[in-house]
């Protein structure tokens, strides 16, 4: 009983961690439509 509960907690925690990492690293950079680049680079490549 205890073991199953613990296993579930582990799965949930690991799930969060993986989702977080995926979001951080695989999310397409949000397009910013506010600035278009003038002469100086504003960081959009």
């Amino acid at each position, binding site marked *: 009983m205890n073991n199953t509960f613990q296993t579930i907690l582990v799965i949930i925690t*690991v799930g969060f*961690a993986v989702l977080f990492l995926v979001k951080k690293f695989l999310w397409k950079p949000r397009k910013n439509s506010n600035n278009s680049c003038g002469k100086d*680079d504003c960081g959009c490549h």
Partner: protein
Amino acid sequence: MSKQINVALIGNPNTGKTSVFNALTGLNQKVGNYPGITVEKKEGLCKLPRGVKAHIIDLPGTYSLNASSIDENVVIELLLNKNDKDFPDVAVLISDVENLKRNLLLFTQIKDLKIPTILVINMADRMNRKGISINIPLLEQRLNTIIALVSTRKNEGIQYLKDLIKNYKELSLKPCLDTSTIDVEYFKNLNNAFPNQDLFKLWLVITQDVNFGNVERQEIDLSQFKTKSHSELKRLQQKETIKRYQFINAVLKEGQTIDTSKATGFRAKFDRILTHKVWGYVIFFIILLTIFQAIYDWASVPMDFIDASFASLSDWIKNTFSSGVFTDLLAEGIVAGIGGIVIFIPQIAFLFLFISVLEESGYMSRVVFLMDRVMRRFGLSGKSVVPLISGTACAIPAIMATRNIENWKERLITILVTPFITCSARLPVYLIIIALVIPEGRLLGLSYQALTLMLLYLIGFGMSVFSAYILNKVLKTKSKSFFVIEMPSYKIPLLKNVAITVVEKTKTFVFEAGRIILAISVVLWVLASYGPGKSFTNAETIVRSENPSLNTIELEDKIAAHKLEYSYIGIIGKGIEPVIKPLGYDWKIGIALVTSFAAREVFVGTLATIYSVGSADAEQDDTIKNQMAAEVYPNGNKIFTLASGISLLLFYAFAMQCMSTLAIVKRETNTWKWPMIQLFGMSSIAYIVALITFQLLK
């Protein structure tokens, strides 16, 4: 329930705007980001008299509404957009008493946008010392505003300012300059084309195209209007600036008197030494060394404490909660992960303490001045100094500190090379390997081990400068070379500001780096705690049968080691062994290399587990050292030799293993291109150098 008053704090850099913000909001402030761009958004709440609240936004420092960088652009975007929820009901312009003339330029522009404006003259405590006296009523009348004389140092004037903010509706909306006088003909046409729009506002929208970026023009469609050519517009802007200064000069001639005979100036005296061709540099290096030494010494005490605390916490969890996989995850994955982050807080906090003091005192500008020429040879800017120094604590806040570098190419190169600087996380790895393979002995009074450490720092710095040089030649990004830095007067740093800065920067590190490190730690724990196949699941039985005579504790250590070997990570480690063998590493080191992706210092802990040094003994450097020294290949040769040790040191010096850094670089450059280049570039360099080193020295 009164509505909140929206207040915008605007002003030149170095006017003490932040101090005023801190004085108004105390700790009720938060730092975020403007959507889509990497500019810090600082806002806070202030309690005004009679239960009224003010929402204060601290806009980036700027010299005028004509933006020349992204953060200056933020100011004008807000002020031109009435529909923005942060659009101010009242603007508070912070000026400093010694630079009133220049500060007023921005003031007149905001007044011309017909926004109610309060003029704060800050640093009023310096008035006497500088022989400055001001006729406030006259200035108030000529500038159509109300003035608050403030000294954040002496805590004077803040209450009055709060009253003024509360009564903002009483402020005059009369502008300072009649915009059409810049070019009567042109503005007449403009007015005819857009009769409903304010002229100055139109003018700003048109010229922002010239200067920087493309301000959102929801309300005004200028595509029909034939505007002037680029250079003609620039000429008109210059005319506007000249007119404004004419106005300001006339006002100040009557309203301000400066008696230079009364003025006492330390600035000149200090500058003579601090920016001296020779002494300037000497003093700077002495200051740098002092800072490093202090950080090293001071930080070790809290670090040891944190280390011990987290180890006890981990044990406590294991003993208190019912045993099971989640308890293990908690104790070994999560607590260890958080411990790995928290332990660097002392070093980072101290470093930013020093940097903040240097900046607040005004000295940092002199450093930038001294270093700019040298830096430029390598494609960097004088302003790259702060990020490079910060990198010795952690690359993440260092990279964020590059935001004030105007030139995009210089900024990019700085971001790309900062990770080469020896950061705190590399130290535990260096220290243990050095202790293991570098022989005893002294040279010129310093032990070989100490010299090796110093050498590694120099290599890190040298590599960053060298790669900057290469990148400068290779990158074809075109960018204007435009460098202006104000040299503020020397001031004694305000403790409050320094403290708030340290807290902010540390928080950034903990949350930005921390979350990633924690997540990766969790994942790595899973990979290390589970494995396919019988060898893993039957670990206990196997180990027991192989070692019938061991006692419980040693048995547990051996079981842990066996499990690690046959876990997923173990398989990965063994899988990469052929690739790392030429560098002098075996699969056990391979595992440690993989876990370093969470955070470099995890290397040591992982090795402890692999060599079945129990967690208690891992504290004793001797035990793990002895264990590592005893490790041999199947053929009997030692694994940790001078050759493989140095190879490992150099690998860690150059490899990009820190995932958190990659995430920050991606955010600051807004693309995956650069962090990927960093990852592959740096790792390749690390691999090749380690390879050559090992093959040469073995």
